[in-house]
């Protein structure tokens, strides 16, 4: 009763508002908000100096560099090839198209540990693909990159695909009539329309890659200062019972992800406006 009287903007004849919202709020508080706030409150028990030491020791900084660098590179590769995959799936016909379209979501459905051991086997020195490569992939930072490309594939494809489907063909016809080459039409007409979606997909893939653990740890080799990702470092600290140190790094990652979430939300608003305007 209290909920409906204080929160509802206008009266509704439908029942169940108090029950539904009350349960949702209770559940979200118990499962998400209380545990998440525990991470932040834990860091408040640390002094500023010890917090700073924990989040800026050389080994931790090396892990940031690897995690952010590999995530960025993987998201960038996915942006390029994701756009190509979305384009091909929307515009062209070829054998097994529907099957391939459905399989694009594989990284969402395949458990990360399964992906991790499969990628490690393939890109090992005697693996199906690894044996043809002149350089090592598994157990190097390059392996981290490969795993992060795998988990990021669906994000760009699935955000760009619906926008490409909605591109008004008359715009392209108009551009062609006015003498634009196909490449000019693509860069000056189509690309600006899909750009917000492309950036959103890139940001989603990047955000997902930052926190990824399961697929990476098998292929990375996990050498301190070289191929150790930040989430693994959190686990290492936990195993040494350094709860405060683990939490301090976790808070840095959480703040980064929340900032990215805000960025992604504003990108999506921009995308909606852009789509609505066309």
């Amino acid at each position, binding site marked *: 009763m209290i909920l409906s009287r204080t929160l*509802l*903007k206008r009266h*509704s*004849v*439908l*029942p169940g*508002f108090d029950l539904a*919202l009350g349960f*949702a*709020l209770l559940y*979200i508080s118990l499962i*998400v908000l209380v*545990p998440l706030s*525990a*991470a932040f409150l834990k860091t408040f028990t640390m002094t500023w100096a010890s917090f700073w030491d924990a989040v800026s020791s050389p080994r931790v900084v090396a892990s940031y560099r690897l995690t952010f660098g590999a995530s960025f590179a993987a998201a960038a590769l996915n942006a390029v*090839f994701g756009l*190509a*995959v979305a384009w*091909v799936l*929307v515009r*062209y*016909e070829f054998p097994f198209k529907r099957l*391939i379209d459905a*399989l694009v979501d*594989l*990284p969402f*459905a*395949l*458990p*990360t*540990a*399964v992906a991790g*051991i*499969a990628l490690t*086997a393939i890109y090992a020195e005697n693996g*199906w*693909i690894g044996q043809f490569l002149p350089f090592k992939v598994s157990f190097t930072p390059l392996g981290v990159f490969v795993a992060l490309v795998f988990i990021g*594939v669906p994000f760009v494809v699935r955000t760009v695909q619906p926008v490409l489907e909605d591109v008004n*063909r008359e715009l*392209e*016809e108009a551009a062609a009539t006015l003498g634009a080459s*196909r490449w000019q039409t693509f860069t000056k007409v189509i690309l600006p329309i899909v750009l917000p979606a492309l950036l959103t997909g890139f940001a989603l893939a990047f*955000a997902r890659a930052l*926190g*990824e*653990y*399961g697929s990476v740890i*098998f292929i990375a080799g996990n050498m301190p200062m070289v191929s150790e990702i930040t*989430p693994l470092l*959190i*686990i290492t600290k*936990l195993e040494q019972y350094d*709860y405060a140190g683990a*939490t301090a790094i*976790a808070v840095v*990652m959480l703040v980064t*992800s*929340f900032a*990215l*979430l805000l960025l992604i939300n504003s990108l999506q608003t921009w995308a909606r406006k852009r789509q609505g305007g066309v």
Partner: protein
Amino acid sequence: MNTLVLSTHDRPAGGDLPAARRSATTESPWVRRLLIGAALAFLTLFLFVPLVTVFFEAFKKGWGVYWAAITEPDARSAIALTLIAAGISVPANLIFGVSAAWAIAKFDFRGKNVLLTLIDLPFSVSPVIAGLIYVLVFGLQGWFGSWFIDNDMKIIFAVPGIVLATIFVTFPFVARELIPLMQAQGQEQEEAARVLGASGWQMFWRVTLPNVKWALLYGVILCNARAMGEFGAVSVVSGHIRGQTNTMPLHIEIVYNEYQFAAAFAVASLLAFLALVTLGLKYVIEQRVKGQKRAVGDRSE
């Protein structure tokens, strides 16, 4: 329902355009071939080869080894624990998803956008951190740790912790499938049911639920796939006690690290098979949901 299925074949296809228009608004054949080739090479390298590898490595040493790997006691207990964790977390998130969607989609209230953002929050939290926060709350040195010890209950390094971590990482799936659909459907049908004298639950079971059943199933399937495959979050809270607190992904890790590759891939192949089933169901349901959304759009126009 038949008309809904039919209306899904509406993607523009370059090949169907009349020849006269083709030259101006599509690419030359070799550009096409190049693009298709590049896209397929990329997907093959990063998606298809890993998928095939799982099954190839699993059966490399023959059926006997495969069967032994998935029926040994530790594997069986890992499979059981995975089913328990998914069996609790999926219904819990289903109930949450339905009630959150009911409040958000059918009522206009203050703070709605904040709630929407909060629902998506677990997706942007690293699985490892999802596990860590439960250790901070329920672990030995955690907020409620000593209380649970005093009452002889174990959360962390035990099954309840695994279930909680799984609930956290699969939290948004059902809600975020239901909310947009129910918002698009509006309140009119439910209001009509109420005017005609239906009770609240009658309205829910006979009007609301049938209207969203495909989206609901879609959310449940995605939720289940993630629940069964979760690795990072569960790894932090599990404690890796063989035969007791290992789920299937954790069992795979342990066996793999013991260099029993065929056994690791055998258990992995079960999860990969689950992933393929998930994708198949997802595809079928997606077509239905698309059709339903379009039907809603037509009605409102």
